[in-house]
Each structure stands twice: as C-alpha cells, then as structure tokens.
C-alpha cells in the first residue's frame, strides 16, 4: 500500500524516465553494435565482440568520402543560411516595412511543409532549368530549408534585446558599423549561434531533400540509406557513436566552461 502510493506520487517521474529510455535505447544499440563482428553483410544481430571497425573506421569504400562531403555541405549551408537568416531576422524585428505578413508566411511555410513536397518541387525546378544535380543543388536546397529555422532562432533573441542598447551605443559616438560590431552582434550572438548549430545539424542529417536533388553525389545519410539495401558495415555505427560522443563532449565542456566563467565573475 505504501509502496503503491510511493509509486503513484512519482508516476510522472517514472513515465518521463521511460520515455527517456525509449529515446536513448537506439543510441546504446548503435554504440554496442559498433563493437560487433557481424556474420553477414548486415550488422543487425550480435555475434561477437570486435574492435576491428574502430581500428579502421574508413575501411569501407566511399564512406569517409561521403562523410567529408556532408561536412562540407553542412558547413557552407550553415554559413549561407546563418548570414541570410540573420539579416532577415534583424529586418523583421527592427524595421517597419510593407508586405510584412507575406514575408512572415514565406518564412513559416517551409517549416509547415512536408519535406518530400519541397524535395520534389525543387527537383522539378532543377529538371526544368536543366541544372546539373550534385554538390551545388544540394547546397542550394540545404540553405533554403535551414533559412527559416535560423530566422526563427535569431528573431527570438533579437526580439528580447533592448533597442535602447543600440541607441546608447549611437549616443556614445559609435557609428552604425561600430554599433553593429560592438553591441548588436555580441548580444545577438547566442541566438545566431543557436541558429547556426541548428542549421548544421539539419543540413548534416538531411536525407529526403538531399536524396531528391543530389543526382549521383552521395552524402553520408545517402550512404547509410544505400547500405541499408546493400549491407550495413560496422563502420557506420563507429561514425554514429563517434559523432554522438564528440557532440556530448562539446556540450558538456561548453557547460563547464560557462559555469566556471560565471563563477569567476562573481565578486
């Protein structure tokens, strides 16, 4: 009876932790199976422990090439979408102009549209224009769908920013360029960084739009997709686990640094 009540009181906690387990389980599987030595071409069933894949992560033909291509595309798409998106976000928050409603819709729609629709229509455009599908068409597509997310992230930050800070800078002899570089940009930086991070993650991980518009170019997600048909090398799990570890490490180190800096600033 007591036990029952104890559980009932913490029902939310148990339910939440179950969901968390559901979220984490695949990552654990990916990690465990990166040490597998599978029997056949597919790495779905456990056979025996092996570190072979970790010792030779690029041992699969074309995989590391596709990985580097994905990193390049993600980098450029992040830069492009962040610059364009930040400009739009500033215009939307800081200025009054015509057609604001139409522009807001144009930014919202890509986020409210199933990816496959954007992918198919963009392919139609490229086919009609006779464009060569490959690196550039993928990059164009990635900048397009990342743009809205950057706008949303940066806009939230700029909106919470006191416009008087920029007025204060102008009042204190900073011209428009100085004001932007010394006050606006540093204060908006967390929002821009969040937008950029989101853009990188979205671009790097994108499959559907890329699959439609890449032609014969193979990004990392496309390589994984292809290998699901041909046979999944253990190295895929190695890459997935390494990415996971690096990202978690970056987040944790970042948090620790921020905490230490805050503590140092205390009187």
């Amino acid at each position, binding site marked *: 009876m007591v036990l029952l009540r104890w559980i009932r009181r913490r029902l939310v906690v148990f339910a939440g932790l179950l*969901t968390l387990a559901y979220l984490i389980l695949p990552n654990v599987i990916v990690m465990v199976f990166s040490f597998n030595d599978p029997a056949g071409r597919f790495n779905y069933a456990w056979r025996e422990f092996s570190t072979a894949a970790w010792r030779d992560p690029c041992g699969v033909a074309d995989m590391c090439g596709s990985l580097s291509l994905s990193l390049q595309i993600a980098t450029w798409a992040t830069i492009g979408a962040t610059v364009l998106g930040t400009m739009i976000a500033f215009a939307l928050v800081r200025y009054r*102009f015509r057609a604001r409603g139409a*522009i807001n819709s144009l930014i919202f729609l890509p986020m409210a549209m199933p990816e496959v629709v954007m992918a*198919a229509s963009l392919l*139609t455009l490229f086919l009609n224009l006779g464009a060569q599908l490959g690196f550039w068409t993928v990059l164009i597509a990635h900048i397009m769908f990342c743009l809205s997310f950057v706008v949303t992230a940066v806009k939230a930050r700029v909106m919470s920013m006191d416009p008087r800070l920029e007025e204060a800078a102008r009042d204190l002899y900073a011209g428009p360029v100085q004001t932007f570089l010394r006050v606006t940009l540093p204060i908006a930086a967390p929002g821009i960084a969040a937008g950029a991070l989101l853009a990188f993650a979205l671009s790097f991980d994108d499959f559907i739009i890329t699959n439609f518009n890449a032609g014969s170019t193979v990004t990392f*997600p496309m390589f994984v997709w292809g290998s699901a048909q041909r046979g999944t090398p253990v190295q895929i799990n190695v890459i997935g686990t390494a990415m996971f570890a690096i990202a978690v490490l970056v*987040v944790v180190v970042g948090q620790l640094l921020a905490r230490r800096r805050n503590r140092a600033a205390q009187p």
Partner: protein
Amino acid sequence: MTGTTTEAAPPPLTTAPAAGEVRKPPTRRRLVPYWLLLPGILWLLVFFALPLVYQASTSVQTGSLEKGFQVTWHFATYWDALAEYYPQYVRSLLYAGTATVLCLLLGYPLAYLIAFKAGRWRNLILVLVIAPFFTSFLIRTLAWKTILADGGAVVGALDALHVLDVTNWLGWTQGDRVLATPMAVVCGLTYNFLPFMILPLYTSLERIDGRLHEAARDLYASPATTFRKVTFPLSMPGVVSGTLLTFIPASGDYVNAELLGSTDTKMVGNVIQSQFLRVLDYPTAAALSFILMAVVLIMVTVYIRRAGTEDLV
C-alpha cells in the same frame, strides 16, 4: 570614427530645411530593411516558391520522358493519382496522426519531469533529449531493426505479455513479427520526432510560474485538477507547436516506412519518391506531392484556428 565628428567645421548652410517644413528620413535609411531582406527572401522565392509553381505546372502536363512533357491542363492526373494511391494517403495521415498522439503521451511526462521535477539533473536530461540528434537519424532508425528483430528480446517480451495477440487482432502486427508491420513504422516515426514534441513542450512548461501551482492548490484544486485547469491550458502553445512539428514531417516521411515497414506499409512519401526517382512519371509525382501539400496545409490551418494560437512564427 574619430575624424567624422568635426565640430570645428562650420555648420551646414543650406541642408537644414526651415522650421515648419516637413522632413523625410533619407531614402537610403528607409531602404535598409529591404536590402536586409532581399537576398534571403529572393532565395526562398526562387528555391521554395518558384519550385511549387513549376510543380503545379508539371502536374497538369502530359507526355513521356522520351518525347518530353507539355502543359495540357490534364487535371485527370489528380483523380487518377487519388484513385490509385488513396490508401497510401490514408495510411500516411493515420500513421502520422498515431505517432503524433503517441509523441504527446510519451513526451509530456518527460517535458514535465524536466521542467518541474528534475532539479539539478535538468541540464543532463536536456542534453540526453537532444543528444540523439547528433547521430544520423538513419543510423538510429536502422538500430530499430535490431531492437524489433524477429525473436529478439522485445518481441519475445511482447509475446509473453500477450500484447502481440492484441496488436495482431488490431492488424498492427502479424504473427510473431513486429518488424515490417504498421507497428514498427509508427514506432519508428514516434521515436524520430519525439524530441520535436518534447522541446516545445518543455519551453512552454518551463515558462509557467511555479506560484501558479501553489495558488491552485491553495484554492482547493487537487493535483489532477491543477494539471487539468492550470498546467495543461498554459502549456497549450507548446502542445500546438509540438504536434505540428511532429505531424507535418511525419506525414511526408518515407524513411521509416522503407526501413522498418513492408510493401503493405508504404506511405505517400514512398510513392512520391518512387514516381519521381524510379518511375520518372513526373506529372503523377507532382500531383501526388501537391495533394499531400494541400491536405497538410488545410489540416494545419484548421488545427491552428481551432487551437487559437496563430502567432507561432
């Protein structure tokens, strides 16, 4: 910057208008927002809006890949596409809808836990929610093949608990298999879009002033009533954007259906993909894609109106 403040210089003689005359801000400054908007908006117009126009025109073309396609206003393509593929549409909406409801049911307790109960664990749990993003979602989806493998621990447990008997009866699973059934696809969809539900929910829950709970308790509300009358209504913005962020991508997804499903679980995304990339029947593919867009946009609009939160952007 220093040289620009020339206070020793004589005052401007003629530029200042006389008192009473109406000044206008210089044209250059009025154009600033347009210059800021131009590149990004142009990008969206050319690579998002214009493609939709091209797709609309393609959908009413006839012809063949060899002879080329011409616009013949052949609207029959739409009826043919609907007639042939309506099961896939129904399936897409059904799977996406089920996954969205499951995401809400699974995600809400976790978001609530992070917002109100996690204490010093809050940041760690948040990192764990976001962390799966860092591994390619295709790799993670493939991991479900292992988890739901025939004869595996999960399937065995479900069988032992007679869950499979129920799901078999409902038609969600077949025999002693979970993989290659609707249940596997919905399970994959739910898993893939769960973080998109949790994060907006968490954001709106976190904004709720803890004193509101105390006030509700003080005013004779039981915990359940407090949740029903205070917490949940206040988290509605998160519920709305979370369900949209889950439903929209799920309805067009074809990765889960392809990797975890069978030919009987194909969604409309699979059809569009194969029409476009394998069959190369562009008009049909364009029409299919357009119908999907229309259905989703109409549903989303109605939903937002009903939910009463239009300022999602």
